[in-house]
């Protein structure tokens, strides 16, 4: 066994001098640097990391979240950043207190690639990404009512009974519908009931019930 030498990314001192208190803590795990950032400043920090010279983390490798087994521990949204030019990686985390609404600013405006990744985190953990233009469930169907599957308080087999799950899954039958968003496109729009058109005008999305 060779011990992994902790090598701190040079971005950390730079971040600390730029944002001081917004950087909550940092650590090195398996030789990879992790920076925990204050929720309110997360978008500023990520935008700075993306664009400022010397950082240039232009590639968003991944967005995900971690819910720890300890229910007291905050849920963490994790951004894997990569600088293609400098060949450097950085992991940025935002800790979200579970007693408050799980909200964080979307990075869709910085990286278009965050579109589906943030939708997946929303779908699996229930984290709301403020500013995401199309935050819908992505892997589960849009009327899925059991909650957020990757949370630790979600049992492996789900909250509902097997019979209820089967009934709901069959009733959802997503191929039989167009979503409201898709309805808004079609020439059928004119034929929609007034109430539905009003819902569309309000910007409501999801399945037509």
């Amino acid at each position, binding site marked *: *066994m*060779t*011990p*992994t030498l902790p090598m701190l990314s040079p971005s950390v001192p730079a971040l600390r001098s730029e944002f001081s208190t917004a950087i909550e803590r940092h650590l090195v*795990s*398996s*030789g*990879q640097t*992790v920076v925990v950032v204050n929720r309110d400043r997360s978008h500023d920090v990520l935008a700075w990391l993306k664009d400022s010279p010397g950082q240039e983390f*232009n*590639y*968003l*490798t*991944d967005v*995900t979240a*971690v*819910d*720890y*087994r300890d229910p007291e521990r905050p849920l963490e949204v*994790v951004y*894997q950043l990569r600088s*293609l030019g400098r*060949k450097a*990686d950085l*992991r940025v985390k935002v800790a979200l207190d579970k007693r408050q609404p799980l909200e964080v600013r979307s990075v869709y405006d910085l*990286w*278009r*690639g*965050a*579109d*589906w*990744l943030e939708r*997946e985190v929303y779908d*699996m953990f229930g984290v709301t990404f403020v500013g995401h233009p199309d935050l819908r*469930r*992505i*892997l*589960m*169907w849009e009327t899925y009512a059991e909650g957020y*599957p*990757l949370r630790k308080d*979600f049992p*492996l087999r789900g909250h509902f009974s097997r019979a209820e799950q089967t009934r709901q899954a069959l009733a959802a039958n*997503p*191929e039989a519908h*167009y*979503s409201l*968003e*898709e309805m808004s*496109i*079609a*020439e*059928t729009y004119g034929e929609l009931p007034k109430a539905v058109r009003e819902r569309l005008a309000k910007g409501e999305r999801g399945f037509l019930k």
Partner: protein
Amino acid sequence: MTLRTVEMALATPGVDAAGQPVRVPLGVAGNGDSGYREDLGAEHMLVNIGPQHPATHGVLRLVLEMEGETVRRCIPHIGYLHSGFEKLGEYRHYNQIIPLTDRTDYLSPMANNVCLALAVEKLMGLELPERCKVLRVIACEMSRIISHLVWLGTTGIDLGAFTPFLWSFQERERIYNLQEAWTGARLTTSLTRVGGLMADIPDGWEAGLREFTRTFPKTLSEVDTMFTRNAIWIGRTQGVGALSADEAINLSLSGPMLRASGVDYDVRKDRPYLDYETYDFDIPIGEHGDIYDRYRVRLEEMWQSNRILEQALDRLERLKGAPINVSDPRVILPAKSRAMSDMEAMIYHFKQVMEGVKPPAGEVYMGVENPKGELGYYMVSDGTSKPVRWRIRPPSFINLASLPVMCEGALLSDVIAINASVDIVMGEVDR
């Protein structure tokens, strides 16, 4: 060059007098604002493709907003194959997760197995024996070849070419036979274990792979002849679904999708693992980012994988009889004979089976260059034998997210071609 070649070349659109492919100008497919909007009326129409449709390569559903023949918007619906692997992994020992990785990207199961083992080994700080690394490189490159062959064959079929499909599946079959001889399974290989491999290669196996690497280039040349200068192929692929380098980076694309747009990013070179930096191979880079360049990149990657396989086989000869596992009883089961006769070995055996591997508390992101793109496993451990979080960074999922961008302004028939060029496996998209 003979006169006949020149005549043929001049008679073939898309090929110049020297027989080299020429670029066709960007048509409506590459440019949404080319005036095609008015001529077919302004009526918008919804077209539903899938989820049961052969050209969507799995259970993918696309809802297209059409304006005449032009796609104005494309809304993909996924999740039909969602199996909750990530959740399931939180209830499994680290070695028990390996069978789950087979079933995500099931066109390259061995490469997924390798990535999982590497992630846990990085978490534990294990140093692998050289023979293990070489065998894993062989597994990864074999996976790359079979995955690209499936891509080539099915994309050919989508665009109306049946023969290359048969050629590529014939070659793929030979690798599957090798895979079966090594692991006992064609698809659910579960090849790796934390700290080593499930099994060494059987006697005489190298000769089979050597024969493959010797004869495989012939098929590649045939495919090259069939496609690269083919007017229909060029017409259907050049300028279609093009993404610039900046767009590709902004969309977080990886693998051949990213490299076809001219971005020089390959995990094997940029963040080397398994001693890839010691192998001699090139990374093909496209420049236009269209389907044609993606095809060229993937075709060239197969040549390069063949080169890597040859070098790995040479190294294997030098490492005959060397160990394939780390000598650490905390991660590798003792030999059965020892476990039955030696008390200490039996205790290790018991603890291994009952408790599994226990990495220290911490977290790791391990990215590898899979055939589809950068596959990453992000693992969080709390020191127990089951991970707190096992995140798959799925290259197919992230590459597929660019589909609406590429389809805007394309023709309906181009959607099929563009979707094929992404190279998705729905098992991995939905997990």
